[in-house]
């Protein structure tokens, strides 16, 4: 059994009366690249801040690398690298100065490695931080998250605000630098196509609740969309794992998770004639989980 780099057990968090996270349970296997998907405002950053020990959960526990997130926050932060969304740094510092400053916090900071990263990421140590482009700013933030060889890297929507080319460039660096070093990567994003090529595990967070978690491949295999012409008395509500039902003229598209032959037979029974089955990409799966109606419209209509 693979050891978990991040373990979250029934985590709750509220800002006053507003519940942001509700009973989150999550295991991030060590060495994986874990895609953490969610819409804006779903609670991704709140969960990450809680994991970093920056805020105390209302209930539940979270641990990183076997250490309690809140009790041993400083020790946790020593062993992980973190890059926030739209990372802002001290504009008056030069790249070299901010590297030196951040290096002061980590006992195991590798200056040689950092120098290599400066070259790889095409940064100049003499440039002032405020003079960096958005792409360079993200590269610097990545560098600062990796300079101490962290065991776990948490990237919170790291490409937010980057243009498509800069985004691709950044992702290429992430893959180059992290994939081969057995570093666990917890990659939070709301852009599916960004996660899909790199993530081997996925979790979908919606309205503070984890909707789905699992290996990327399994997720792809298990979620299926069926196109059929329903019988007049067709009722899909009793089919387990129903994610979305959408009418389009005389035909209906039904998306279900954990697709089995039994579910296929049930669907077939509601079809006036044959049905077609299609695999979904991650984008569509995410859509089905997050905005899928779960047959409610059909049931009420």
């Amino acid at each position, binding site marked *: 059994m693979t050891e978990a780099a991040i373990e979250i057990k029934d985590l709750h968090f509220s800002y006053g009366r507003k519940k942001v996270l509700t009973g989150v349970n999550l295991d991030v296997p060590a060495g994986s690249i874990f895609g953490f998907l969610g819409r804006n405002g779903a609670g991704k950053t709140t969960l990450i801040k809680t994991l970093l020990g920056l805020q105390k959960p209302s209930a539940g526990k979270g641990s990183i690398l076997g250490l309690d997130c809140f009790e041993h926050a*400083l020790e946790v*932060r020593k062993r992980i690298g973190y890059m926030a969304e739209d990372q802002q740094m001290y504009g008056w510092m030069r790249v070299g100065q901010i590297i030196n400053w*951040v290096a*002061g916090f980590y006992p195991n900071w590798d200056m040689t490695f950092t120098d290599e990263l400066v070259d790889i990421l095409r940064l100049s140590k003499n440039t002032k931080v405020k003079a960096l482009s958005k792409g360079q700013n993200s590269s610097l933030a990545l560098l600062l998250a990796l300079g101490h060889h962290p065991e776990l890297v948490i990237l919170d929507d790291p490409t937010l605000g980057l243009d498509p080319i800069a985004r691709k460039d950044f992702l290429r660096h992430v893959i180059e630098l992290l994939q081969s070093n057995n570093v666990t990567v917890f990659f939070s994003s709301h852009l599916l196509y960004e996660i899909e090529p790199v993530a081997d595990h996925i979790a979908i967070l919606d309205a503070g609740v984890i909707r789905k978690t699992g290996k990327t491949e399994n997720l792809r295999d298990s979620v299926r969309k069926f196109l059929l012409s329903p019988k007049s008395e067709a009722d899909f509500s009793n089919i387990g794992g129903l994610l979305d039902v959408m009418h389009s003229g005389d035909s209906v598209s039904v998306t279900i998770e954990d697709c089995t032959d039994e579910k296929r037979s049930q669907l077939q029974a509601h079809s006036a004639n044959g049905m077609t089955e299609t695999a979904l990409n991650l984008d569509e799966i995410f859509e089905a989980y997050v905005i899928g109606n779960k047959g409610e419209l059909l049931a009420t209509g």
Partner: protein
Amino acid sequence: MKIGRIIHQQVMQLRWHFLSCLGLLMALPIEEAFINLRDGHGFYVTGLSLGIPIVVAPLLAGLIACGNVQADLDENRFIFWRSKPVGVKTFMTIKYLVGLFMAFVVIASPVLFAIISCKFVQYERIELGIYQAMGNSLMISLLAYSLCFFCNTLVRKTARAWLIGMAVTVFLLLVPFVLPLNFKDVVSSFRYFSVIYLVITLTPSLVAFIISLVAVSRDWHLQTNLKGLLWTGASLIFLLMLLFTRQVANIKVLDEEEIYNAYPRCMKRIDGKLLLETQSIRELGSSPEKQTCENFYINIENNQIHFDTIDDPLLRYRGAIFAPEASNENEHATGNLIFKKNDGNLYIVSMYVNSRRVKPSRSQTVHENVYLRSYDLSNPKFEMVSEIDLSEFVENPQSWPDVVMRQIENKIIAIVNGSCVVVEFGPKGQLKVAEKLVRKIRVGPAYWKGKQFSVPIVPLESISLEDRIKLSLDLATVDGSYYLKDLSARVDKRDGQYYFIAVSESGITRYQVIGWDDKFIQCEIKDYRAFTVLEHMVDDTWKYKSQYFIKDGILYTYANKSLVVFDIRSDRIRKLGHYIRPKQIEDIEVLDNGDILLCAETEKGFRIPSDASSREVNYLVRSGCFTGKVCLSLLKNPK
């Protein structure tokens, strides 16, 4: 974690704040500073050129505090440093301390620069008050810095945090003064008052700092809007004004009745009468030489005031009465006593200090000789009758000797630098030493600790015990110049109890004698009444400490433009009136019915006649006639 790197980052982050504040602080008094340098006084040596930076310093300290945390508390940057393995409290404490240190360096720079520049120009006389003022400035700056630091951790908007921080600073500093707090039994001297002042500045600073740490670690925000801030500010001002009204109601413009309008300088008490010197210029116009000087007795009988011309002998020697002439140009009269003998003659006894400049530079003056002399005012030649040489009492000729003279009936107590002679005044004005004590008298205010304390009794045998007690207590209140010769001026006896009053720049203390033995008088503090902030604002309160006296259980004290009257008959000091007038008070005299004669400048300033020649104008300028007319006014009994 390498703290040095955090400190370095902090210093670098604040470097522009630091440099601009330092530049501003050094540049503000630049004109005066250059004048000082030209005069060979060092660059920032005078009160004004150092005072400006000291006053501005708390504002800049607040600015540095806001700049200190602004960059770190920005929403996106906040998460950047917080995600690093550094404790919030450690990080913020380092920031606070480094910023505070830099603020203190900025504030202390003008004084340090003054000291260095004075060494450079070999100017040694830096006023000690500057260091005290700088100390005060540092304490207020600490408060302003801490409160602005705290406000910015909550508000996270530099300008608003600075405004709120400064407003709270001012509020905190003023509230203890405007609230009807009574420091009775707690504050017995200025030192204790300083402790309270320290508590007022240190406690909120510490609390603000601790709450700042909690606020940052819990990411507390406070949403502010400009309108709300303005309303809050207006409310605070309103509250302060409400509190101030209590003091304002206590201060009145002097309702004086002008009874004589001339050029009186001061009043003297001779033979139970008041002598008023005037400089009436009756025939000014064509020739200034026609100005005449007149002296009057002010006869007060049945509370009616009459002006009688002074007898010839007194008129001739008016100079001797008001400013006794020294026997030569190197001698300075330091005070005088007037005696009237049975033969009807008036005698004057004065103490003289002989000064001379020493070679080679002649820049240094030594004061080696002190004399006590008596003169017969009836003698047209104003000849000396008798002289006693007190030069043996001079300890350090480089310093001006501390001299005090008191009159007890026919005896004169002359004290020079803690040594004392009791001199008997003979029937023809002869002076005869009755007793001599070398270095056994303590003169000057003492800072007594605790509610009860002891004052040593002056070990003189030639005066009565009651006079010894009064003299000992009287000498204990001497602070600076004290020319009142009446032992009852500060010490009084009511209902068999001795009590005395000490006025300092911070307030009035009433002491009572609770017992005595052969060597000591046991005293107890009965009440302390601090000057309010408004009283501090309307006049130089430090002048009160040398210009006060008691008469019939009422304390009268005056500074430049203020006359304050307190009822001190009971254990609670109660203000009867605080009168202000637009111009200088020269002298006051309390009449038997409680009315007050006021010798003071009037608004009716002297004007140069339009046809005056340049010679006349020059004469008037040289004779200082432009300082304004002085009048004699009568103020009704404040009781």
